[in-house]
């Protein structure tokens, strides 16, 4: 998710080298998300691992899968997530659309380190989805 977030590059647990983010969970009442939200979710391949990616497509959208010319429709109850740094991001391009039930919250702010404090913006890459 570079440059939106700086991940901690060491694998030592408890190290605070990476950004600390604020996650709001009110969105889980109605599971209402917008395109371009950054969300945190359990990965489909390992329920103990959490990923932070950007929501690109919601149920019913048609999305153009990058690096292949196929267009696929997101099934109901699922969503398509992608990292901001496509060169090194394990996301829906590898594991496909994920069920919305795996989402654990929406990222609203970066709260540490102090020079990176600020709101996380909702931005959508253009030309990826069409609603019909």
């Amino acid at each position, binding site marked *: 998710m570079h440059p939106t977030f700086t991940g901690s590059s060491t694998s030592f647990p408890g190290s605070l080298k990476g950004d600390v983010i604020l996650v709001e969970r009110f969105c889980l009442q*109605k*599971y209402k998300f917008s395109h371009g939200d950054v969300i945190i979710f*359990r*990965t*489909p*391949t*390992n*329920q*103990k691992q959490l990923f932070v990616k950007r929501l690109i497509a919601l149920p019913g959208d048609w999305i153009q899968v990058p690096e292949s010319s196929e267009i696929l429709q997101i*099934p*109901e*109850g*699922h969503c398509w997530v992608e990292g901001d740094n496509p060169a090194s991001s394990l996301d829906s391009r590898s594991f496909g659309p*994920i*069920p*919305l*039930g*795996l*989402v654990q919250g929406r990222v609203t702010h970066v709260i540490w380190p102090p020079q990176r404090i600020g709101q996380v913006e909702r931005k959508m890459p253009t030309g990826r989805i069409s609603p019909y």
Partner: protein
Amino acid sequence: MAVGSRAVAWLAGAARRIGSVPWRNISAEAVDRTLLVVKAACFAHVINSYVVSLALVRGPSMLPTMNLTGDIIAVDRVTARWGTVAVGDVVLLRSPENPRKTVTKRVLGLEGDAVTYIVDPHKGDASKTLVVPKGYVWVQGDNIYDSRDSRQFGPVPYGLIQGRAFYRVWPPEGFGFIGQKVTSL
């Protein structure tokens, strides 16, 4: 003039009475009681989310294990969090088709298992076999004639499992542990 002085006297008396009420004690007690209620609510919430909770399950997809009109069951939240759900467990999971709906099904296959299922029991015995991918589970309702489960929406990620149903609390006739019947229908 007598009326005026009587009113003033009454007001002074009222002010004295109000002043003599032990406000500090009452407010301290009110804060204490409120804190107790808040603590109890926090405790109940933690138990409900992380240890055991109750759920009302309805619908035909788990007959005969669960009633059509509704059973109240105790759901253990610890097993799912620790990753120790086993084949034959009845689990509550968020539906992959609608995250606002929680469904109850039985786990018939964990990651790496080969699952054989009858595609459409209304239309004969044709069956398919597949291997459950890593991180996913295969769930089916006990009533395969009227259940929307992995036969329609495929294996579900383990992360969707909310808890394991282990005891039926209501109705009283059905009181007891929920069995680990491993069905090979």
